[in-house]
């Protein structure tokens, strides 16, 4: 076994919620409002719903292949080479997420706080730290997250609550003015569609009570979606749908407007805390998934040797994938065929193959009956 630690369904839910909230809260409001105006928050809720759909398929797969990660059962289902290819696709997806998060982290820090510091300083420090955390294993990541999520969620809630004096909910009217098709399409943009639920396919074997995964995951996804939606409503209520999309990071602008009785102001540092903690955790988590996957498809006994090389690759990608911040925003704000394929098509396909082979060919994949 590559991973000896075990985490509880609750810890899993917290992990999921954390990786959903952390990066989305900064980048999502700007482009969703640009697309949908005052109805952007609907897309967020819808996206959370879609995330639950992905979660459901992944959960079904995990149930049917008890004790196996997606990299292992893909090989069982599709044969050695095709299975490895599927595995590679997911590893690449996870690494790409790592690269994007690293870049977002650097871009945000340089834009908002330290304009003269080179981007690479942030990149290297976060990758180094994450790689170190990945080596410690899933259990440590989950436990660390238990503390960090408290910090992140309370900070966000506090900031939202403190800004309420400036809210003008009239900005949300007229309600439901957006085009339904556009709404659906926007909700499938990976940053909004809570595709992070796909990682459950990797960590499900390490969860103590797999039966609870679906419930814990759904609760986590929906509450993360709700928090994000409230965040967007808050920023909308302050800036209105026309002004908001002109900001690069609406949340930081949002926080800059808070000034209660001339005493409570300058909460930028709170956003920074949220962001550093969130980006760090997301990088760590996805690097962990990629490393574990790579170790499994190459049949290693431990995943430690691949962590650093994969970290280096992700770092290089974080520089080479995007020229500038406009490229980055375009990449995370456009729906693509690729994301449908990876986050919906492939899991459904794997599930179909499982069912067909179980039903018609009587192959057992070690599902229910082996369980306890």
């Amino acid at each position, binding site marked *: 076994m590559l991973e000896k630690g075990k985490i509880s369904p609750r810890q899993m839910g917290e992990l999921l919620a954390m990786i959903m909230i952390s990066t989305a809260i900064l980048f999502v409001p700007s482009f969703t409002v640009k697309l949908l105006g005052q109805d952007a928050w609907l897309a967020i809720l819808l996206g959370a719903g879609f995330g639950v759909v992905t979660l459901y398929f992944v959960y079904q797969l995990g149930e049917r292949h008890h004790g196996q990660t997606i990299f292992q059962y893909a090989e069982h289902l599709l044969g050695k080479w095709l299975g490895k290819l599927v595995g590679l696709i997911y590893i690449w997806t996870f690494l790409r997420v790592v690269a994007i998060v690293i870049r977002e982290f650097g871009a945000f820090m340089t834009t908002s706080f330290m304009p003269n510091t080179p981007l690479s300083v942030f990149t290297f420090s976060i990758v180094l730290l994450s790689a170190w955390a990945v080596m410690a294993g899933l259990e440590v990541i989950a436990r660390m997250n238990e503390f960090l999520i408290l910090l992140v969620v309370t900070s966000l809630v506090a900031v939202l609550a403190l800004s309420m004096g400036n809210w003008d909910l009239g900005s949300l009217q007229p309600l439901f003015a957006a085009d339904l098709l556009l709404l659906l399409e926007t909700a499938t943009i990976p940053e909004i569609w809570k595709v992070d639920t796909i990682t459950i396919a990797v960590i499900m074997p390490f969860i103590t009570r797999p039966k609870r995964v679906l419930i814990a995951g759904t609760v986590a996804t929906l509450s993360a979606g709700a928090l994000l939606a409230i965040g967007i409503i808050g920023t909308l209520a302050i800036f209105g749908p026309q002004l908001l999309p002109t900001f690069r990071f609406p949340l930081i602008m949002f926080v800059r407007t808070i000034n209660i009785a001339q005493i409570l102001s300058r909460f930028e540092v709170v956003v920074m805390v949220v962001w550093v903690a969130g980006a760090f955790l997301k990088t760590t988590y996805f690097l962990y998934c990629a490393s574990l996957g790579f170790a499994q498809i*190459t*049949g290693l*006994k431990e995943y430690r*040797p691949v962590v*650093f090389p994969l970290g280096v690759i992700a770092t290089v*990608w974080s520089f*080479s994938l995007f020229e500038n911040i406009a490229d980055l925003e375009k990449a995370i704000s456009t729906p693509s065929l690729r994301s449908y394929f990876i986050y919906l098509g492939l899991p459904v396909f794997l599930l179909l193959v499982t069912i067909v082979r179980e039903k018609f060919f009587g192959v057992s994949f070690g599902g229910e009956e082996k369980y306890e």
Partner: protein
Amino acid sequence: MLLFLLVLALVSIVILEAPRLAFAKLWRELAVFFTLWSFASFLAIAQVIGLELPNPIELITQLIQ
């Protein structure tokens, strides 16, 4: 300067991982590590010296779409 630091970092990764694996006689792990490491080093050095590499995986992505 940056290249020097990069090489330093890459070498220290090897020093950190390789001896341990060799002592434990995990040959398969060692092989995978070195393959991946050389790929990563190649990418990183190419990036630092400013070589315009078509990213193979991004290319595939373009093809799929």
